[in-house]
Each structure stands twice: as structure tokens, then as C-alpha cells.
């Protein structure tokens, strides 16, 4: 239980006051010489158990009355259904708000979304608790100090399209608490417990937990969990929007997926239903009825005519009727003519150069144009850096001016795959350098690779790349910190990437027969290169789809400054000025960006209670279950209850203390002889 005036609790020993007074009274008894002890002894022997019980009850009620007064003066707080967590008024309260789209689910029977309910409850609670400082973390790197009451109206605490980074915000809270040496801190987390928001699988939680546990000051965690599912929720998403020319007209083929996933993330029901899907492009609205079946229904390549105009770039919106969660009822998309697939190839070995150029020149479809341009090592300065999507580099790692050019290319979003030089290679790039060649007596086949993400991920259809069928005879070692994407049985990396997230990859063997079967079993090499090209094309495309969050923030607030981006479409309600967190279509210098909620928001489930509770094991932690639309405050002053309890105790004490009915007449004292 929390008390607003915990210092009053120092008076709790006064609970023993009735006992002390009783003992003092016992000590202050009168001593009377007495003759008729035989009657006294008989009376004592007749003393009943009820009498003793009554005495103890009176004592107990008096102690309860004193306790009631002290606790009432201490201004106790009740925290919803869990009023058992101890603690006093915190010096610092840090509010971590999950503003992800799933928090905009609402209970059909009650007003207010989970986010609005949690925000209001937190504001009320913090206003009651009145901490010395109230800090807010809703997605930024650093907490912002706010008045507690302002939380409910803070634009930065409003709904966002991005997933919440709960561990990141906790890390920021930890950094702040540690750096500012705050006193007693209380971290309030309001979340619906979605797996993608909590990133429980990514590790780091143990370190975070240990870090909090080692803080010198006490940190309490209060989780306001809105983890009850809201059934009947549908989510719509555009999986692809591409232009096609047919008979002189242009068609936009839009693929839409409607997920029957409730707001909690669990699979929805299987019953059939028809959902009208509304397409809006340039003010033209088209409605298509989609028969739902199963968990997810896909409307593939739905054609939307664009007319014969010259403009090829545009944006649109897909929406479905309102349901319990409004945030996943619409999706924005943009489209444009695809950019040419230009790849620069720098190679020392002619054989390698031929293979790489060939791989880069084959477009994935006949409508696309692909070009692999050989760039001599001496001609890097004049290479087509601005239009290239990827750079395939076989030779010593770039250094000096060459390295600067490559770094600039990477910063623009280009992708680079380094292949090892046959000889030399003492240079270092991004902290990585080539090691020695390692020859295998027998061809080695990769046993481990990452099929879930990055360049060697499974295909869209779910099929794995035949990485395990490759045969590798020579690899060159790498010095430096890299993340392996594929490894040989002896642990030697075959394909790696830099851990900083930039598109820098290393392939440790060469596509030559004496080195590997990368060329003869060309599927893996082709997929590797084409995926890198695809990634490199994204920054060059006139229209991009990005998930709200850090990537969108970088894009929309990019190097040109956020003032250059213009919002063309988006939710009607006012949003904060935070870049990249809100869904919509943004434009700058003729380029379009559609920002939508991440895919995980539609697929991630709700974490089990015990899994989230386990994250705070060893810390002072309380979980309070909230419900969308709930009007009760989670923190209430309950001193009245203690006063009433005190009064009841006093009344009970008074009733028990009433003297029992005394004998109305004394025993017969008249002289018996005289009466006779």
C-alpha cells in the first residue's frame, strides 16, 4: 500500500498504546487488604472464557482504532485491485506508454481506447501520487518532464502507428535514473503486452533487469496491462502495389490482405463473412466485397485503372469498415515506375567479374531493366554512384578516398557485398579486414544460415534457398566484428554482415570453380545479389513503403530536415510532430513515402502474463490489469475507509466495554437472627 504521507507511519508503534495503557493500569492498581478471599477465589474460578475473550477483543479494537487513525492520516492509496504493493510517494515517476496501433482497440461496450483509458488513469494516478518529478517516455530516446495532469492531453502521448520499443524505453529510463541519481523512482508502464512491443526474444532483458536491480535507489515497476483481447477485429494491409501497362493503359495491381485477428493478436474465428474493401486513389473510390475465410484472406493483384495520364507516381488508401480497433482499418500505399537496377561491379579477377556482372544484369522480371556496370578500381570517382543500387566489390577492401565514396554510398542507402581478394587485402573497412585463405581438403557445405531474415531468408513462398547444397573449397577469414548469415561446419563464416545495420556484406569465397559452386549453383548467389539490389533500390525509388518507427523517422526527418516533408494523407485526428511515428503519405521533392503500422502489429500475439512478470523477476513489480473504457482510477485515496474502520472499532469497543448489568440488590445482609 502506498501512502502520500508515509512519515506518519512512524507513529505506527502507537498501536501498542492501548496495551501500554492497559499495562500501566495494571501497575497502578490499588492494593486492598481483604478478608473474604474465599469468595474472591470462587469468583475468579468462575471467570468464563467469554470474559477473557471480551477483554482481548476490547484491546484489539482499541489497537485497531489507533491504527485506523494513523493510517488515515498517512493518506493511503488504493491501487485498483492490487492494493498490496508497498511503497511511498516516489521522487521520480517515469511513464512509459505503449502507443502502438493495437493500443487503440476499444471495448465496444465502453468509450475510450486502451491507450486513452491508460493515459487518463495514469494521469489521475500521478496527480494523486504527486511525485517530485514526472517524466514521460513515449518513444523518444530521452524522457521529457511533464506535469502529471498534462499526460492526458500531451500530443506526444497520443496514438502512433509505430510499434512500441518497451525495452528501449526502459533502457532510456534506466539511463536517466542512473545519470540523474534520482531518489525513489517508480516506472509506470502502460501496454497491451504485444510480443513485438516487448521484444522478449531479442535478449537484453536480463541485462536490463540486472542493471535496474543494481541501482542504488529503489525502483518500483507498475505495469498497467490492457491485455484482454477485443474480438471481432479485422486488419487490412496492402502487400503489393505495382504498375503494369496493358494495351496502352496503366493499371495498378494492388494486393490486399485482410487478417481476421482480434485486437489481442490471437487468431480470430473461422466463420465466413464479407468485408467491403474500399480503395481510394486520387479521390476515386472503389469498393470490393471480399469474402473472408480463415485467418487471413488475400485479394491478389486487384486491378485499379489509372488512365492514360503521364503521371506514373501516386498514392492511395485502402480501408475497411470500423471495428473495435480503428488503427488497423486503413492502409496507405504509394506507387511509381520502378527505378533501373544498376549495379556497380569492382573486381580484380576477370572470372569473378564475369560472374558478378552476369548475376547483376539478369532482372527478376522481364519488365524490369537491370544493368551491371564494371567499374575499374581507378575510375571509382566517376562511377554512377547516384543511380546504382548495389556495389559488388572483389578485391582489397577500399581505403582512403575509395572508402569515403563507399561510405557515402552506404549512407545513401546503397548495399555493398565484398568478395575476398586472391592476394593482399591488408586494408580495413568499417573495422573489418580480410584474413588468410583457408583451403579445405574436402568441399564443405554450409550447415547453418539464417532463413528468417536478411539476404539468405526463405522465399516469399516460404521455400528455403539451397544454401546447404553449395560446396565450398576455399574461404578467406575475416578479422573484426561481423554477424554471420551462413557458416560452414567448422564454424568459418561464409556470408556475414556488419552489425551496425548498414548494408555491408562479406562473402568469404569466390564464385570460381576452384573456390566454390556459387557460380555453378547460381541460385544462392543470384538471390544474394538481387536481394541486395532490391534493398539498394528502395532509397532510389520515387515511392516507398516503410513501417512507422525508426526507419520512417530517419526517412521523413532525413538529412534534408523534416521541414521538407509534406503530409499528403493520414488520419484525421491531430497528431504530434514526431516524425515517422504516424501513418500517412508523405512527399518531398516529388518522392512519396507511405508510412504504415509494422507487419508485426497484425501478427504478434499477446505475451502470457507470467512471461511479462518473469521479465521483472527480482524487482519490485506490480501488475494492474486495466480494461479499455474503464472509468475507475487505479490509484485512489482510501483514508475514509480507514476512518470508518476506526469508527466501527470504537463503536465495537464501546459496546463491549459497557458494564454488564450489575446486581440490583445486595446479598441478604439483614441479621438472620434478628429477622427470625
Amino acid at each position, binding site marked *: 500500500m502506498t501512502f502520500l504521507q508515509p512519515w506518519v507511519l512512524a507513529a505506527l508503534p502507537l498501536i501498542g498504546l492501548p496495551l501500554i495503557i492497559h499495562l500501566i*493500569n*495494571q501497575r497502578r*492498581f*490499588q*492494593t*486492598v*487488604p*481483604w*478478608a*473474604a*478471599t*474465599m*469468595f*474472591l*477465589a*470462587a*469468583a*475468579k474460578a*468462575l*471467570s468464563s472464557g467469554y*470474559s477473557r475473550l471480551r477483554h482481548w477483543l476490547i484491546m484489539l479494537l482499541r489497537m485497531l482504532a489507533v491504527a485506523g487513525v494513523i493510517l488515515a492520516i498517512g493518506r493511503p492509496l488504493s491501487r485498483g485491485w492490487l492494493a498490496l504493493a508497498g511503497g511511498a510517494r516516489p521522487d521520480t515517476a517515469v511513464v512509459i506508454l505503449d502507443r502502438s496501433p493495437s493500443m487503440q482497440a476499444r471495448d465496444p461496450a465502453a468509450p475510450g481506447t486502451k491507450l486513452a483509458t491508460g493515459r487518463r488513469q495514469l494521469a489521475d494516478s500521478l496527480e494523486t501520487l504527486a511525485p517530485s518529478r514526472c517524466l514521460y517516455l513515449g518513444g523518444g530516446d530521452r524522457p521529457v518532464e511533464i506535469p502529471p495532469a498534462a499526460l492526458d492531453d500531451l500530443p506526444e502521448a497520443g496514438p502512433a502507428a509505430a510499434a512500441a520499443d518497451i525495452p528501449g524505453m526502459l533502457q532510456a529510463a534506466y539511463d536517466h535514473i542512473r545519470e540523474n541519481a534520482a531518489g525513489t523512482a517508480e516506472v509506470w508502464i502502460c501496454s497491451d503486452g504485444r510480443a513485438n512491443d516487448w521484444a522478449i526474444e531479442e535478449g537484453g532483458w536480463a541485462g536490463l533487469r540486472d542493471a535496474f536491480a543494481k541501482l542504488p535507489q529503489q525502483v518500483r515497476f507498475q505495469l498497467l496491462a490492457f491485455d484482454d483481447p477485443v474480438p471481432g477485429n479485422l486488419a487490412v494491409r496492402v502487400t503489393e502495389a505495382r504498375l503494369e501497362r496493358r494495351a496502352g493503359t496503366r493499371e495498378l495491381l494492388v494486393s490486399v490482405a485482410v487478417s481476421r485477428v482480434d485486437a489481442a493478436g490471437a487468431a480470430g474465428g473461422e466463420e465466413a463473412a464479407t468485408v467491403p474493401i474500399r480503395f481510394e486513389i486520387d479521390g476515386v473510390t472503389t469498393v470490393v466485397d471480399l469474402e473472408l475465410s480463415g485467418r487471413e484472406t488475400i485479394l491478389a493483384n486487384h486491378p485499379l485503372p489509372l488512365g492514360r495520364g503521364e503521371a506514373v507516381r501516386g498514392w492511395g488508401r485502402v480501408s475497411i469498415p470500423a471495428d473495435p480497433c480503428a488503427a488497423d482499418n486503413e492502409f496507405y500505399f504509394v506507387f511509381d515506375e520502378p527505378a533501373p537496377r544498376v549495379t556497380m561491379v569492382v573486381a580484380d579477377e576477370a572470372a569473378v567479374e564475369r560472374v558478378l556482372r552476369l548475376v547483376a544484369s539478369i532482372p527478376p522480371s522481364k519488365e524490369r531493366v537491370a544493368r551491371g556496370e564494371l567499374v575499374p578500381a581507378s575510375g571509382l570517382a566517376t562511377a554512377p554512384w547516384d543511380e546504382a543500387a548495389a556495389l559488388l566489390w572483389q578485391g582489397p577492401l577500399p581505403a582512403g578516398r575509395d572508402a569515403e565514396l563507399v561510405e557515402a554510398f552506404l549512407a545513401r542507402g546503397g548495399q555493398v557485398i565484398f568478395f575476398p581478394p586472391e592476394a593482399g587485402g591488408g586494408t580495413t573497412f568499417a573495422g573489418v579486414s580480410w584474413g588468410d585463405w583457408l583451403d579445405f581438403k574436402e568441399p564443405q557445405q554450409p550447415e547453418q544460415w539464417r532463413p528468417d531474415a536478411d539476404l539468405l531468408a526463405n522465399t516469399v513462398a516460404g521455400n528455403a534457398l539451397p544454401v546447404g547444397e553449395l560446396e565450398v573449397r576455399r574461404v578467406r577469414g575475416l578479422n573484426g566484428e561481423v554477424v554471420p548469415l551462413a557458416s560452414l561446419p567448422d564454424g568459418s563464416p561464409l556470408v556475414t554482415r556488419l552489425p551496425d545495420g548498414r548494408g555491408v556484406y562479406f562473402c568469404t569465397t569466390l564464385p570460381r570453380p576452384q573456390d566454390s559452386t556459387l557460380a555453378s549453383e547460381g541460385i544462392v548467389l543470384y538471390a544474394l545479389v538481387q536481394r541486395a539490389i532490391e534493398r539498394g533500390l528502395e532509397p532510389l525509388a520515387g515511392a516507398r513503403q516503410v513501417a512507422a518507427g525508426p526507419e520512417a523517422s530517419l526517412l521523413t526527418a532525413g538529412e534534408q530536415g523534416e521541414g521538407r516533408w509534406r503530409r499528403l494523407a493520414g488520419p484525421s485526428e491531430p497528431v504530434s510532430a514526431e516524425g515517422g511515428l504516424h501513418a500517412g503519405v508523405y512527399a518531398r521533392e516529388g518522392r512519396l513515402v507511405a508510412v504504415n503500422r509494422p507487419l508485426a502489429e497484425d501478427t504478434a500475439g499477446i505475451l502470457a502474463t507470467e512471461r511479462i512478470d518473469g521479465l521483472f523477476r527480482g524487482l519490485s513489480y506490480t501488475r494492474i490489469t486495466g480494461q479499455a473504457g474503464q472509468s475507475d482510477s487505479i490509484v485512489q485515496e482510501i483514508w475514509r475507509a480507514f476512518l470508518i474502520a476506526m469508527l466501527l472499532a470504537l463503536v465495537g469497543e464501546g459496546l463491549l466495554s459497557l*458494564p*454488564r448489568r*450489575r*446486581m440490583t440488590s*445486595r*446479598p*441478604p*445482609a*439483614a*441479621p*438472620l*437472627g*434478628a429477622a*427470625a
Partner: protein
Amino acid sequence: MFSDRQPRAFLDPAVLARLAGVPLLSRRPMVGNVSGRHASPHRGSSVEFAEYRKYVPGDDLRRLDWRAFGRSDRYYVKEYEADTNLRLCLVLDTSGSMAYGSTGPVAGDSQPLTKIDYARRICGPLAYLASQQGDAVGVSCAAEEIVRTLPPRRSPAHLRLVFDVLEEARPQGTTGLPEVLHELAETVRQRALVVVVSDLFVPTEDLAGAFGHLKFRRHDVAVFHLLDPQEIGFQFQRPTRFLDLEGGGAIFADPVEIADRYHTAVNAYLEAIRQLVLESGIDYRRVLTDEPYEQVLARFLVGRAAGRGLR
């Protein structure tokens, strides 16, 4: 009579003067050694006619009733009651419980009137009255055993000794009244008026045996049962540590809490005493120490004179 001594605190001349008009009588024939005011089991020469008896040779011819001979032509001897003196045995309970007193202070003293004080006021006048009518007076102080005893004597000097014993009696020790009464029943050979002045804080069944023993020895038994009003009313308010005057330790109690049960115990005790009195036929007087002792004594003397002692 006692001009050479300090006046006894328990003797009030005015009270004695008022009580002197009522004789102290025995309810049973006494076997005395001198003539007195009490009936004797033997025939004597008093003026009170007893019976006619047939003349047998050897009878004093002066007692022959000639008128009866004239009417019936038979010889009858006229017999009269023999008056004799009595032996008054005062049994004063001097156990520790007799030191209790809660009623108003004794005149001229700041101490409350204790039961032993009251007992002296009962015994002193009785001794005086008995002595004045020629009876022998003795006293026994009884605690756990007989602390001090004076056998009955008729001399005025002996009365002074009795007063001394009464005055010097100090309450202490436990009560062994039943044992003391048994012992007296054995040691007082001749019939006597045994006056017990005590609070009787002993088991009633023991008392019944002792009184039965005295009755068996043909003693006339009278009991003054002294009770302090506080012992009956038990009017205490604060938690109290009751210190047993007979050395039985202390009992801590909240009087408010146990008053009802105390009164229950007192009632049961008094009811047992009542039964004892009814069964044994002793002359029982229950006395609250807030009553004037003169009234108590007057009631006692008048009751006996009228032959209305409780049986």
C-alpha cells in the same frame, strides 16, 4: 470498679447501663456451683414450683405438702427449681480476616472499625453483664488454634483479665475456628453458654461439625457472625490487588468484572450458613459492622430473655 485502669475502648458505660436491665439468660439448664439466675437440671430451693413427688422415707418433712395430704390423703413432697449460675465462654475469632474493616473510623481514631474492634464491643459488654449477674466468664482467642484462653471464673479480678485479653487480642494467622470449637467442646466439661464472635470464613461443613459437637456436650451456643458491608457489597471500581489478611497471598482482579460472580459466591455461602443454623439450632446473629453494636446486643439479650432464640 476499674477506676485504677484506663477506660477500655470497647466498653461504653452508657451502653452498659442501658443493657444492664436485661439479664443474660441461658436457653438451656446450667450446672453451676452456686446459686444464680439460671435454671439448673437439679431441684433446688428457689421460689419457682417445679413438680410434686411422692414422699419416700428420708425426705425432709418440711417439704411435705400438707394441703395435698389433706385433699388426697397421700404424702407428696413439693419440689422447686434450683437456680444456679452459668459459665459464659466467649470465643473470639482472632484470625487475620478479623482485621478487616471498611466502615467509618472509630471515634477518636483515624482507623476504620475492624471486625475485631466490633467483636470486642460484643464480647466486652457480655462479659460485664454476665459477671454482674454472678456468672463465670471466660474467653478464648481462636486463630489457627487457641491463641489465648481464660477459663470461666466469677471474680471481678478475673473479669479484668478477660478485658485485658480482649484488649490485647490481635488478629493474625489463618482461621482454625472449627478445630478450636472442637477443642473447647472437649475441654469445657460443664454446661456453658458458648458465644462465638467470628466472621466464619471457613467451610460451612466444618462449622456444622463443630457446632454439633458443642450441642452434643449440652452447651448453649450463640454465634455473632460479623460481616463487613464491603464484604457483602463488594463496591470496588478500579483494578485491585486483594491482599489476603490471613497470609494466603494476593489476588488481582477487576472488581467490575467479577462482581457478579463474587455476589453469587457470597449468596451461596450465606445460604449454606442459613441451612446450618436451621439444622443445628444455634442462636445465630448475622451482624453487619455498620450496625450499632448496642442494638445488636439488646436484640440478643431480649431475644434470649423471651426464650425466642433461633433454633
